[in-house]
């Protein structure tokens, strides 16, 4: 057993760990230093068609030191705990490489030191369920998909994991947080002659195994949807009125607007600050977009971020007006705003960067039928297949799409890709449904850190003049 593991496994607050860290932090002449330790384990199971192709277990341990000197950071990640003081010294040396004339003074949003310990409360912890039980459940889903008509193959990717993290900084914070996570994706692949189509389902939880139980009906449904796509036509490319289902609208909230609210994109860019000025109108009065890590039992939930900052609910847009954005301690200080507790790192190999948590469009009052009602020709898009953004422009793809003709759902279409300018598109949302749902599947990638557990959600929303790609 390594020194690190022995330390972390101690019950309660481990005096020797705290002493070790506080000794290592002393006398380096940096403005700020923090240390993370992490121990994790995970189980992965992957099917490809009939074959359970990969089943593996992993253990991982390590840590990092981050030091701030005059606005510039040094970062050292390591596997071995020995020589911690030297690692701190290296991080400080790195931070000093920036020329002093361009570095600003010590600048982090101030916070009271926190000493706390967070342990997940689970009814049925997935990481404690036997491999045999997991395999039996996944076998069932796989058999259902593979025995459906025209289904040629399938994919199942299951992963659960547990992380134990320790955080300490030179201001006196010391936090131990344990976090579990669970993710499942089912994909059915249909084929006929040279046509290949697929449909999928993503689920997740904060480690509660029940989230992936009882999906037999959904497994059947994605298999029949994949088969139905084979003869489906492609949408004619162009501009349409579109209705997004809660899953895809949630992806839109995350991709198109959420990333723009991450202030590390904004804080160094004066032009972008003018675009994203607080108090500016971005949409109709019915539009509210919120990021909230404090909601219990969602994959993006946590009590303290990876800078030890306590979290809170953050309104990004309230009644159509830009009200807030997501911050680390550094970006908040630089922009003269409050830190929001959104600095997150995927693991100890990376420094924390500004990330979302649970991002959603708050429910409005329209029913789905009302939204359909006055559409002459449009597209109903459901379920996400992927999404990405470059701040101003977004693109995301729907797993399922239907034409809308004269207020009614019409033929099934091949999967479509939607794209647009986020500012125009937000203004073009003309109806927001009353049926909020949170989606726990997938994960978020940014700056090489992927997939980070997040969730997103929305009710049905309707967008005018949206570009839909096809042939």
């Amino acid at each position, binding site marked *: *057993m*390594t020194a690190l593991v022995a330390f972390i496994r101690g019950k309660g607050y481990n005096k020797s760990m705290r002493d070790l860290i506080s000794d290592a932090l002393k006398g380096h002449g940096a403005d700020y230093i923090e240390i993370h330790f992490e121990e994790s384990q995970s189980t992965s199971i992957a099917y*490809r068609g009939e*074959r*359970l*192709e*990969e*089943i*593996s*277990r*992993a*253990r991982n*341990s*390590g840590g990092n030191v981050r030091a701030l000197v005059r606005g*510039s*950071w*040094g*970062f*050292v*990640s*390591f*596997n*071995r705990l020995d020589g911690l003081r030297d690692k701190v010294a*290296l*991080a400080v040396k*790195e*931070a000093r490489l*920036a020329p002093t004339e361009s570095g600003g003074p010590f600048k982090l949003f101030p916070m009271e030191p926190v000493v706390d310990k967070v342990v997940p409360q689970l009814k049925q912890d997935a990481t404690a369920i036997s*491999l*045999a039980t997991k*395999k039996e459940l996944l076998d069932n889903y796989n058999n259902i998909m593979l025995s459906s008509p025209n289904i*040629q*193959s399938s994919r199942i990717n299951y992963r659960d994991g547990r992380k134990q993290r320790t955080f300490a900084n030179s201001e006196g914070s010391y936090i131990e947080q344990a976090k579990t996570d669970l993710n499942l994706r089912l994909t059915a*692949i249909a*084929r006929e002659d040279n046509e*290949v*189509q697929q449909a999928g389902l993503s689920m997740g939880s904060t480690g509660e195994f029940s989230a992936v139980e009882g999906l037999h009906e959904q497994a059947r449904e994605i298999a029949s949807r994949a088969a139905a796509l084979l003869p489906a036509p492609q949408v004619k*490319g*162009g501009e349409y009125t579109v209705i997004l289902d809660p899953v895809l609208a949630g992806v839109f909230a995350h991709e198109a607007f959420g990333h723009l609210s991450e202030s590390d994109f904004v804080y*160094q860019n004066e*032009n*972008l600050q003018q675009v994203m000025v607080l108090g500016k109108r971005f949409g109709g009065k019915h539009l509210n977009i919120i990021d909230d890590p404090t909601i219990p039992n969602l994959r993006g939930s946590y009590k303290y971020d990876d800078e030890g900052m306590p979290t809170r609910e953050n309104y990004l847009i309230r009644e159509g007006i830009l009200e807030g954005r997501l911050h680390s301690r550094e970006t908040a200080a630089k922009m003269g705003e409050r830190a929001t507790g959104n600095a997150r790192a995927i693991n100890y190999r990376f*420094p924390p960067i500004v990330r979302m948590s649970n991002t959603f469009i708050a429910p409005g009052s329209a029913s789905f039928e009302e939204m359909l009602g006055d559409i002459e020709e449009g597209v109903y898009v459901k379920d996400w297949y*992927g*999404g*990405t953004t*470059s*701040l101003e*422009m977004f*693109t995301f793809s729907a797993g399922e799409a239907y034409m809308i003709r004269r207020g009614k759902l019409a033929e099934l279409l091949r*999967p479509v*890709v939607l*794209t647009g*300018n986020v*500012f125009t598109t937000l203004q073009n949302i003309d109806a927001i449904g009353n049926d909020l749902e949170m989606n726990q599947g997938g994960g978020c990638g940014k700056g090489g850190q992927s997939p980070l557990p997040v969730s997103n959600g929305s009710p049905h929303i309707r967008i005018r003049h949206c*570009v*839909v*790609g*096809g*042939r």
Partner: protein
Amino acid sequence: MEHLTEVLRSAQKVAEQAEVFSVSSPDSIGIQFEANELKQVQTKESSSTALRIFKEGRIGFATASGGGGWEALVDMAVETSQFGSPASFQFPSSRDYSEVRIFDPKVEEIAMERMVEIGKELIAKIRGHTPDILCDVQVTKGTSSISLINSQGGEGRYNSSFFGLSLEGILVRDTDMLFVGDSESSCRPDFSGIDDLADRVIWQLEMAKKKAAVSTKLLPVIFTPNGVASALLSPLVLAFNGKSVLEGASPLKDKLGEQVFDKKLSLWDDATIAYGVGSYPFDDEGVSSQRLPLVTNGVVMNFLYDLQTAALAGTQSTGNGQRAGGFPRPDISSLILSRGDVSFQAMVEDMKEGLIVEQVMGADQGNILGGDFGGNVLLGFKVENGEIVGRVKDTMIAGNVYQVLKELLGIGQEARWVGGILQTPPLYCSGISVATKGN
């Protein structure tokens, strides 16, 4: 290497066959500039060990990273082996591998201070052209040591080095945002790469000075090397993967020896290129690397295999077993697309109306298994009557690689590396669906 032997010995006590693989990188260094300023300097140490066993004919697998934890590897691998796939192959007993040049000691000599200077020089060049651009630059370097040992006598070890430069620039005017950028990577430091990279980004900025409108219709498109990588590569990589072929999901599964692509098109996977970041003397399962033709004059020649997939398909591993921290899977090393005979300028001059596509966003989101690509043109230019007239916005392209690459209007005579893993010339394609706002 010591702990590898120890893990192997204890695994052999409980398993019929075993293999231990380890990667360690003592200190990868990354210099990051944000908004033209040095923001962060980082040093990363990492090491991981993977154990694969055959127990009662089934494959068990476990990984451990960190200073220790490898003591638990055997127990974890045994636990997973109860449910693992039946082992269909033997671990190779090879010990002699041809040398592939992928280590340059000069990488170790570059000081952090020099890396900071390189970043500054690059930013200064770009800002010399466009003073108000904000650049994020990364300069990275490192070395890795890979070791493999198995119960059948197989054993190998090599070192590799890495040096990389990347730049992303953003220019914001009102709500209009322009993204430019490019990267260079190699196993050795190439300081002339700084100028090449700067020149390419300056070309992007120059071409994007004006805006141009495009209409919704079928148009010819020139995919630049970056455009080929961002739009067309993923469906091809997936189709040539032995796993897709084995399960019958690849559209190429029964096309070996058939003419599927344009006669002008040839494609190789080559793990032996000197100083290529995708090169290696043996793959992550101990199989010797090679130069493997995938397409020769439009005819499908080979697929990519690892040991298990090859055994199930009744063929041999092509030395493409690779691990990204987990199970070995077939994957590309470096892809080389053959040069053609048309200059980029001649392609542009040939177009009455068309697009040059440099960067597509979200191209991997469609049905890539079926060959579809499509997405937003993040950086692309309109051509009218043989001249580049400006940058397009709010524009999507869509197509299918099997239709688009069946008949090409031309292949460029100048090839270059993209992301260190693809070397390609520009491709001149016809009939790409273009959709835009306002039509």
